[in-house]
């Protein structure tokens, strides 16, 4: 165990005893990545903010169950992905939603499009960026939920595919095939813009 991972393990053990400083350190270290995953999975900045908070509060409650097996990130991102999945399911039950395959935009709830700020000029470039975002979002929306989740977990958890397969309890071959399909769809959407 190198000094970095030994230090991290010590910090996790302090977090297990609900040491406020250690928990704050976890929030600083992982907050933005958890937010990113939840933002991309839900399509809503507001929902992602709430879910990020829920994720860490759940970590606080459940951290004594963490087994110190060196897979904290997998454990954390499993909680984050589960919460986002539950949120999307609840939203789907309520009615059609933008941000999910085939849905419509639900006012005030979804802002996966990050609109550019035109105050500082370069409207052409901003417009191109908006269009690129639209294509990306559409490609993400059209993916199967599991394909999208694997791709976004790879992006934000930074775990290798084999750990993502473990996390989702699926064979590595399945995870790779789904990621490959998702990337192909994304690439084709991006190529269309050129």
């Amino acid at each position, binding site marked *: 165990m190198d000094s970095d991972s030994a230090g991290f393990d010590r910090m996790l053990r302090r977090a297990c005893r609900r040491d406020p400083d250690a928990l704050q350190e976890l929030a600083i270290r992982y907050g933005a990545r958890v937010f990113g995953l939840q933002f991309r999975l839900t399509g809503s900045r507001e929902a992602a903010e709430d879910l990020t908070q829920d994720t860490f509060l759940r970590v606080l409650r459940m951290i004594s169950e963490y087994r110190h097996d060196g897979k904290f990130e997998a454990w954390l991102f499993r909680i984050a992905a589960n919460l986002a999945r539950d949120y999307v399911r609840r939203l789907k039950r309520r009615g059609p939603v933008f941000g999910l395959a085939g849905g419509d935009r639900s006012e005030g709830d979804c802002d996966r499009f990050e609109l550019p700020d035109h105050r500082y000029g370069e409207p052409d470039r901003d417009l191109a960026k908006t269009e690129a975002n639209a294509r990306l979002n559409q490609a993400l929306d059209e993916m199967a939920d599991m394909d999208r989740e694997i791709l976004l977990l790879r*992006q934000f958890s930074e775990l290798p595919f084999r750990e993502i397969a473990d996390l989702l309890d699926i064979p590595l071959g399945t995870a790779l095939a789904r990621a490959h399909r998702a990337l192909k769809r994304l690439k084709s959407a991006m190529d269309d813009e050129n």
Partner: protein
Amino acid sequence: MNVEQDQFEREVERQFAELRDRLAISPPDPALIDNLGIRLASEAARYRKRRGRLPALRPLLGAAAALTLIITLNMSAVVVGSASSDPESVVIDWVRSLGDTESQFTRLFESERQSRNQNLDEQSEDAGGLFNSLEESFESFESIIGA
């Protein structure tokens, strides 16, 4: 190790590396992370405080459980035995019966205190008495079945 799968994994990783910048998002408002840290620290402090109080409360839990049981039994006895089916009268009867509950609880508490003060000799004497009475019961049972 499956060589084909390894190659496929490398290929998927390569494709991912090409597109990962596209998937990145602008970072969240720093206030979100700050507030998250503050909320976690305060929740952790509350959690620790609650945990600290638990051992102090543990001895009272038994008494609280006994009290709840007595009140529940008393309540059901009053409800079953009440002359009136009017809910208001039942509640009034129950409140009156709380006086009895108090004396029952005192008796329970007192007997619990006494049993703690009993010395070991007394306890073994009680155990011996219990054993003898069990033996007598078995003997009478055997004589009844003609063994």
